[in-house]
């Protein structure tokens, strides 16, 4: 009775935004939809929150059909859209009160659910929402989305544009909400946030690349990845790309992630090659694949 999505497709005029999307979110699961801007995440969220109608396919939220039972769904879901969507000219408290009212409840009634988030912004309860910092806005938006004790929570890119400290706090809050029997579907363009979800779907260009737990996705990465570094990054990348046995070459922070086409790859050989290219301080070491490596391999 969580979220069930089967064969959803949606096009805007010529552009195909979603193509045959299917997945299932179990009750009380924290499910992540991971993909870059323009992958179709927001369109999918809007279909699931009954704001858009899909061209094809079916979806149910806690058993209610998104098309026929949209009124029931609107009573039982919490939705936090991608950009900050509260009244900037109302204070923190006025916003919260207003959203409680339109859901036919009061702040007091469900205070227990939002308490540990609300106490963090309570000192600013008389401040206008427009004057809050990014992290504060996001906490207030979460409070407003939770005020009617929804069974399912939809969070569309809640951490975009938020600094690392607030991001971390936000994910901690989601973990706690999960304990309170709320099913959560969250989307993010940040691959590093994938590891914080129970299960994730990688999505790009309107298609799902893979659905699994973050651990399994990384495990299924079939190649051995090497961290390569040298004195000159630009020349290193060019040399690696020119190497005849390269399978993939991706800059990855201070290193380059390198995979080879051969199963019997010997790093020493590569080192010799790089030295011939007049590179120095060369280091080649095995490393663990990340979600990002998996994503790129699949999207390649």
């Amino acid at each position, binding site marked *: 009775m969580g979220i069930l999505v089967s064969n959803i497709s949606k096009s805007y005029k010529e552009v195909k935004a979603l193509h045959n999307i299917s997945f299932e979110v179990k009750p009380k699961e924290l499910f992540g939809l991971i993909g870059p801007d323009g992958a179709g995440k927001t369109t999918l969220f809007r279909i699931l929150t009954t704001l858009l*109608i899909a061209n094809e396919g079916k979806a149910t939220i806690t058993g209610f059909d998104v098309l026929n039972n949209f*009124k029931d769904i609107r009573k039982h879901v919490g939705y936090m*859209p991608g950009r900050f969507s509260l*009244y900037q000219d109302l204070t923190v408290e006025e916003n919260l009160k207003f959203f409680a*009212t339109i859901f036919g409840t009061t702040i007091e009634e469900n205070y227990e659910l939002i308490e540990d988030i609300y106490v963090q912004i309570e000192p600013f309860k008389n401040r206008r929402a427009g004057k809050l910092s990014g992290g504060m806005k996001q906490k207030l938006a979460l409070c407003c989305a939770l005020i009617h004790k929804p069974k399912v929570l939809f969070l569309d890119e809640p951490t975009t544009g938020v600094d690392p400290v607030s991001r971390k706090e936000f994910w901690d809050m989601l973990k706690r909400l999960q304990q309170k029997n709320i099913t959560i579907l969250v989307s993010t363009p940040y691959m590093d946030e994938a590891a914080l979800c129970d299960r994730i779907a990688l999505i790009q260009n309107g298609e799902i690349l893979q659905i699994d737990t973050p651990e399994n996705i990384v495990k299924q990465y079939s190649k051995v990845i090497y961290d390569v570094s040298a004195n000159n990054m630009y020349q290193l990348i060019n040399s690696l790309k020119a190497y005849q046995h390269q399978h993939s070459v991706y800059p990855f922070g201070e290193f380059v992630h390198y995979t080879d086409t051969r199963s019997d790859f010997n790093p020493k050989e590569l080192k010799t090659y790089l030295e011939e290219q007049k590179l120095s301080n060369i280091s080649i070491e095995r490393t663990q694949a990340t979600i990002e490596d998996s994503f790129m391999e699949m999207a390649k």
Partner: protein
Amino acid sequence: MKLFIGFVTKEFYHIFRDKRSLFILFGMPIVQILLFGFAITNEINNVDIAILDHSKDATTKEIINKISTSKYFSIKQHIEREADIETVFKKGKVKAVLNFEKDFSKNLIKDYQATVQIISDATDPNTANTISNYVSSILQNYLQEQNKGIKINYVIISQPRMVYNPELKSVYMFVPGVMTIILMLVSAMMTSISITREKELGTMEILLVSPIKPFQVIIGKVFPYIFLSIINAIVIVLLSIFIFKMPVQGSLFLLGVESVLFIISALALGILISTISATQQTAMMISLMGLMLPVILLSGFIFPISSMPVPLQIISNVIPAKWFIIILKGIMLKGVGLQFIWKETLILFGMTFFFIVLSVKKYKIRLE
């Protein structure tokens, strides 16, 4: 009910915290009515006129002297021939010409009656009208002085003749027009902007994904503006009564009811606009171009409908403001009751009903 109060409270917060909308709501009506009131004024001062005196006798001299000493007129030119009248007007030197008939004194004594023609430039019809009234009253005064102690009354017939705009209809009744414009502006533009603002901010998305029903959103949005528009209407009526001494002849109650009807139709138009525009800017443009311009140009407020080309006259019929102005003029100036304006009221009612149905139908329960 709690929901309603909550929603309306929120709307009032928006209105009172936004200086721009506060100005449009309360500054604009006052500024407009004062502007129109003082710009279209009945006072004239030192208006240039020309004299065409065919008799040049004692009486005409006396009258001319009286006119020239009044503060209202200054005699710019004496002309000799009828043909020169056209010329002085064309040159724009004078606003009016007084044409005394031949043998003015003689006629007055012989027939107890003489004629002076007041020819005025009615490109500015308001002034033209005023000029002829002033001249007439100077002549009246003169006669009254002359007739003292004489048993037989002399009569000077003044023949006003307006050139260039002979009909001179519905000109300076600016109060009904301004009231219509302001109610339209406040009701239609402000509601459409306030609804599209929610779309722009994304809060509409959250409202949609909540159990609140479309009609609840609409009523919650519209109520504060009904309230504020009524206050505006009252302010305008009070201003016109106390500052411009404009008598309201008819029933104030009827005036109130008709105003509320018009306000509701404007609000429905506002909602309709908000359903077809995605941004505040579009809503504002549509309100200004699609509502304000027709109200100003085609409602008969400034340009008399009867002198418009036929196609425009037909179009003017679909503009609610036209009917409301007729109703307002009826009540405020003529003091008529419902029995004389029921037809207009019914048309306005029909339009309002149509707009409400259309806007509720058009209101989207989803994005897109």
